[in-house]
């Protein structure tokens, strides 16, 4: 008897005082809290994107943003975001009913090799013809912003998407490739042992990037995934700091001397790349297609299976006879050399290298491109890089340039809420996320589930 009375005593008192309990109820209400958060977020966004204050009107940034009709637009957007969050379940159900037939058609369609190859051919023809009609500004974007980053994303996709290794210093290999090219073509303050044509320097630069990858990977790839992320992060920083501070070698923050444009003079084939972007674009296209074909073949080979197994469960992969260290190192070295290769093309295109092109944010950007496109998916990496690199250029002049990252950040957040698998996910990645949603495994951006020692 007394036990029952005790347990009743523990129960919290029923509504004590009207006003307070309403406030508490509101505080406990998840949806109401989300609404408040969205509105605050909207106001913050309004202030950030609004006018800036000055010495004479220090509060103008706030008053100009909050007491101006445009704040209504932000509030509406905030409420819409709240609705999207609250109605996420029903919304994604609805989206699924709309997109299910499309994705089914996609798999059935693309499953047919004839359709798939005709689609690839059509895309390739489009990629050859379309840029000719673009303005020279967009042709430049196509090379500097899109083409080079497509190459970088494809390379990082092998490391992160295929083998599941988180490389946060990926840009370092790009820097090594670019500065190697500058070295061999005589554009650095220190003079090379012998001068090379930039085209020939590709071999040396790619080798340098690959060797750097192996030197960095060999000791760290024996460790677990998280260590690799930290080591590569540090390595990326070291390289940028060197590029900045080793003035006598790299030219420092002032940049390198002029790297000559590419030229070939081989077996009667003579060509000189110039300021015009289009020839660079076609060169990139050739290499991107060649590398895509190569990586696709690898993905479907024994090597690709080894990478998948490593990503899924490294111990089980080893126990199945996969030399996990070798394949991890291979993925890492392939990513590094692709990155180094992109660096050479970049160097000879822009001609002057500055350390700021190789900052940590660039490594993160490339990772974002890969995740946005669809981790582990080659078409995804291409699409992700193309879309996300095109967008800022497209928005140029349409929005306040200072707010660019606000919009891109919002896009990424919305994308990760509604389509975490990316634009064009790999088949397996889509399965991973479906299983994670069903609570069977965990899915994070990079590694597979870490099946514990204990079951």
């Amino acid at each position, binding site marked *: 008897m007394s036990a029952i009375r005790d347990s009743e005593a523990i129960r919290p008192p029923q509504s004590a005082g009207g006003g307070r309990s309403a406030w508490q109820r509101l505080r406990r209400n998840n949806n109401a809290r989300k609404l408040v958060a969205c509105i605050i977020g909207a106001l913050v966004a309004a202030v950030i994107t609004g006018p800036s204050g000055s010495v004479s009107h220090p509060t103008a940034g706030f008053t100009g943003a909050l007491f101006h009709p445009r704040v209504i637009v932000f509030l509406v957007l905030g409420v819409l975001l709240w609705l999207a969050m609250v109605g996420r379940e029903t919304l994604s159900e609805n989206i699924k009913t709309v997109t299910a037939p499309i994705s089914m058609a996609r798999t059935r369609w693309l499953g047919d090799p004839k359709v798939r190859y005709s689609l690839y051919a059509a895309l390739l023809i489009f990629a050859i013809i379309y840029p000719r009609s673009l303005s020279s500004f967009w042709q430049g974007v196509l090379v500097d912003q899109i083409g080079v980053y497509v190459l970088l994303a494809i390379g990082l996709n092998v490391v992160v998407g295929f083998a599941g290794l988180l490389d946060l210093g990926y840009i370092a290999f790009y820097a090594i490739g670019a500065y190697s090219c500058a070295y061999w073509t005589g554009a650095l303050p220190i003079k090379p042992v012998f001068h090379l044509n930039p085209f020939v320097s590709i071999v040396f630069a790619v080798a340098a990037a690959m060797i750097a990858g192996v030197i960095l990977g060999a000791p760290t790839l024996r460790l677990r995934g998280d260590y690799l992320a930290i080591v590569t992060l540090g390595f990326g920083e070291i390289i940028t700091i060197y590029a900045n501070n080793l003035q006598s070698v790299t030219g420092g923050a002032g940049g390198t001397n002029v790297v000559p444009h590419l030229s070939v003079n081989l077996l009667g084939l003579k060509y000189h790349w110039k300021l015009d972007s289009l020839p660079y674009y076609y060169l990139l296209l050739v290499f991107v297609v060649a590398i895509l074909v190569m990586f696709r073949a690898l993905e479907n080979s*024994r090597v690709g*299976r*080894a990478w*998948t*197994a490593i990503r*899924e*469960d490294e*111990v*089980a*992969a*080893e*126990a*199945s*006879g*996969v*030399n*996990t260290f070798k394949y991890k190192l291979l993925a890492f070295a392939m990513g590094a050399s692709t990155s180094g290769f992109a660096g050479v093309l970049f160097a000879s295109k822009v001609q002057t290298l500055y350390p700021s092109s190789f900052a940590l944010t660039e490594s993160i950007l490339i990772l974002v491109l890969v995740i946005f496109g669809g981790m582990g998916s080659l078409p995804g990496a291409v699409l992700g890089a193309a879309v996300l690199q095109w967008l800022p250029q497209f928005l140029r002049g349409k929005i306040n340039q200072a707010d660019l990252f606000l919009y891109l950040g919002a896009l990424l957040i919305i994308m990760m809420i509604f389509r975490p698998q990316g634009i064009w996910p790999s088949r*397996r990645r889509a*399965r*991973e996320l479906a*299983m994670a949603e*069903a609570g*069977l*495994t965990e899915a994070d951006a990079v590694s*597979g*589930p870490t*099946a*514990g*020692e*204990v*079951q």
Partner: protein
Amino acid sequence: MSVLLQLSDVQVRYGAIAALKGVTVEIGAGEIVALLGANGAGKTTTLRTISGQLHPHEGRIFFEGRRIDGLPAHEVVGLGIGHSPEGRRIFPRMSVLENLQMGAYRFGRARKDDLDRVFALFPRLLERRTQDGGTLSGGEQQMLAIGRALMSRPTVLLLDEPSMGLAPLLVQQIFDIIREINEQGTTVLLVEQNAVQALSIAHRGYVLETGSIVMSDAASSLLVDPRVRAAYLGEGAA
């Protein structure tokens, strides 16, 4: 009977902790040998050391007369030692078929007759061959783990607690299948908590206690040994 796998005075440490303190075990070709012991005795450590995931700090391991204790795990598989690890560790996002193909990785691709053999032993896997490994039931995952290890055509199969977490009926079935695998010519080293059932299909058995072998005998003798019965069957102390 020729000795197929031999551990002589094997010592293994995890940092400063000695997990195996001189284990000597011999497994003859064609045998089923049971390795029994309480939780934390070092059974899993023994299997992982044999398959090259751990390396002994002292002692030697011979397989078919060849010293293997320094070899990396992927090479040990290539010699013909298959390991179905504790906790199954199947590839969760690969289909059943892909999991089995991974087991045959040392050959490049799965051979048809190996697949047929696994599907004959575990018809359930054939039914579920396109299903993702991670969505299988616990018992099915265990079958897949054993099947995957068989795909490498092992001469000796190391099984770490194949009956863990299974319903009694399924436990019996798994033990019958282990016997069948053995009758088809594969030597088996079986780690088990289910002492009676393990000893009833085994030829010989070893008892491991905090890193040392304390008993070894024919399975039939261990089964009636009062000390074993006291320790594993909860019968009154000897």
